[in-house]
């Protein structure tokens, strides 16, 4: 599956080249136009068959959270800063790859034997960690790695029964769905699939891509927060694995267009596709940047529930991934300019 190549590709925010290569190889001969813009976004187009002037942009971001090397110390250890939101608790003793040639490294950690019980209860700041690449001097380290090199988690994609595991499902899962949608095209409207950059550092690629495309409506595809483990309190898991694509009525960055939310729900119910409503208010998406472009773009995020995102390894259900493709493909077959001329009232 394409998700394997996407997940294994190295691509922290601002360094999406290898992911872009996978995307371009997969879609270049299936679209009418494709361009890479100044911020590295892949902007493709499949011309519409019925409403050629009605533009719908579907975005998924190529970048993942990662690190940037700030300096090598006298012992050859690499100090780093974070790129995007990573919890320091997930870092110790994790394997990473660094720079263009993907040098392997391990994030340092003091052994349990030497850790006092008081210390064990505390979170070590990433500022007090370093990446060990197996050298013992600054000069050796600087021969292999340059200040400003990126680093990313190094976890191989793998199938686990009905689930898959791998790094960066946020948002390579969205990229995989978008590639599948391109394969199922063309659509009645003018379809603009956009693989964006730098989402994890502030929706930066989507902002300029949407400015260029100026769509009439937009969908942002995501691999999103899922907290469906056992819990004491009967409160939202945000999303749950196995319950289908998650439609977001609202997140931190956008209040979804009510008519698009309604269209997704009606489509899922008519087609018998399972779906869930994501806990409102959690996380931000490219839809946050897209909907505020120029005079405004009705937008909605749709996500594949993914456990443990922003950590070295995520898990998702193959069925959820497939159902997200089904829901989006069916919704895109139904979207018309009329949908956006409709009243915004009603129950959603």
């Amino acid at each position, binding site marked *: 599956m394409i998700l394997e190549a996407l997940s294994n590709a190295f691509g922290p925010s601002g360094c999406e080249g290898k992911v872009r290569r996978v995307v371009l190889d997969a879609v270049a001969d299936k679209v009418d136009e494709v361009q890479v813009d100044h911020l590295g976004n892949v902007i493709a187009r499949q011309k519409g068959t019925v409403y050629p002037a009605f533009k719908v942009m579907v975005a998924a971001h190529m970048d993942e959270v990662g690190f940037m090397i700030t300096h090598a110390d006298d012992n050859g250890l690499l100090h780093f800063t974070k790129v995007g939101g990573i919890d320091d608790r997930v870092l110790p003793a994790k394997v990473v790859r660094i720079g263009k040639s993907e040098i392997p490294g391990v994030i340092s950690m003091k052994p349990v034997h030497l850790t006092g019980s008081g210390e064990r209860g505390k979170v070590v700041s990433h500022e007090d960690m370093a990446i060990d690449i197996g050298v013992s001097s600054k000069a050796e380290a600087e021969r292999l790695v340059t200040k400003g090199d990126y680093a990313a988690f190094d976890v191989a994609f793998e199938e686990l029964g009905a689930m898959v595991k791998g790094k960066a499902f946020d948002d390579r899962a969205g990229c995989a769905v978008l590639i599948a949608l391109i394969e199922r095209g063309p659509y009645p409207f003018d379809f603009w699939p956009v693989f964006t950059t730098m989402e994890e550092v502030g929706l930066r690629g989507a902002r300029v891509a949407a400015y260029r495309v100026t769509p009439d409506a937009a969908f942002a595809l995501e691999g999103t927060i899922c907290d469906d483990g056992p819990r004491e309190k*009967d*409160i*939202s898991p945000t999303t749950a694995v196995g319950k289908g694509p998650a439609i977001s*009525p*609202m997140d931190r960055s956008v*209040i*979804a267009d*009510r008519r698009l*939310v309604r269209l997704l729900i009606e489509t899922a119910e008519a087609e018998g596709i399972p779906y869930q*409503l*994501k*806990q*409102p*208010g959690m996380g931000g998406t490219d839809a946050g940047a897209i*909907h*505020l*472009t*120029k*005079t*405004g*773009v*009705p937008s909605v995020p749709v996500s594949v529930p993914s456990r443990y995102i922003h950590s070295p390894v995520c898990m998702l259900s193959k069925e959820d991934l497939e159902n997200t493709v089904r829901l989006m493909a069916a919704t895109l077959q139904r979207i018309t300019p009329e949908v*956006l001329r409709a*009243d*915004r*009232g009603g*129950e*959603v």
Partner: protein
Amino acid sequence: MRDTIKKLVEAWGPSGAEHRVRALIQKEISGLADTIRTDALGNLIALKKGSGGGSKVMLSAHMDEIGVIVSWIDEKGFVRVNPVGGVRPLYEVMGRVAFENGTVGVIGVEKMEKPDQVPPMQKLYVDVGAASREDCPVRIGDLGSFVRPMVEMGDRLTSKAMDDRIGCAVSVQTLRDLGPSPHDIYFVFSSQEEVGLRGAMTSAFGISPDVGIAVDVTGAGDTPEPQLKMATKLGAGPAIKVKDGGMLATPWVKEWMVRTAEASNIPYQLEVLAGGTTDARAIQTTQAGIPAGCLSIVTRYIHSPSETVSYRDVVDSARLLVAMLSRPIE
């Protein structure tokens, strides 16, 4: 004007679901503008064309109010909610919330470990009278707004959603009272202000005005130990914004307001607000930059169900705008 205010503040319209407020305003201003349209983000934009030789002016008052959104329904039918905009749980506990389909619920709170602790949003739930998840009349993603009808206390009016339906009422009144004007005036009733000035951002881009004025509420510094230390008072006239947490008013726009108030014998006060901001910030930073200012209505207890204003200030705010817009800008 009191009738219009009552209708507007009691209307249901959390951010992203302003359609009822929009319909209400459309009715109030019908026949008064040359064109009226709704844009992609739900902003209502009414244009009153000028006689020529004037400027393109944008007024912006936001239709949305703070509220809640359903995040989960538990097995016993209790509803969990997340905030929409700057909700302060302390102000809402044991109050009521109304959802779009008419369902009303009581905002309950779980036992706090320390009784004097301010509850976080996660400790609140809404009891809509359901006994199970299955018979609960709302679903995840449904929006709710707080319930509190308007009460008149002499010159003072108190209600939920004065922020910013009172600004909408001032804009509506301005449109009603405005005689001939050289300016093309865009009366924008904006959406999604409470979640980040989103409607003003896109409407300002579309209009690309020569100057923008937000009409919004600001804090009052005239109560015992006020939340905000500021010099503003209820009943001392419209507040002309100098700065807030997100914007420095364009000096000539501020001066335009001051000069007009003095020439028209309208009382005014100058406003320096430490935190918060208004649609004026979004307008000011649109495209290549647009001169912008804000006319504020001093309001006590902002973001509570009992936001309180002085009616006299409200009337004077509309008078000031009419005076400003009736002649060329010097």
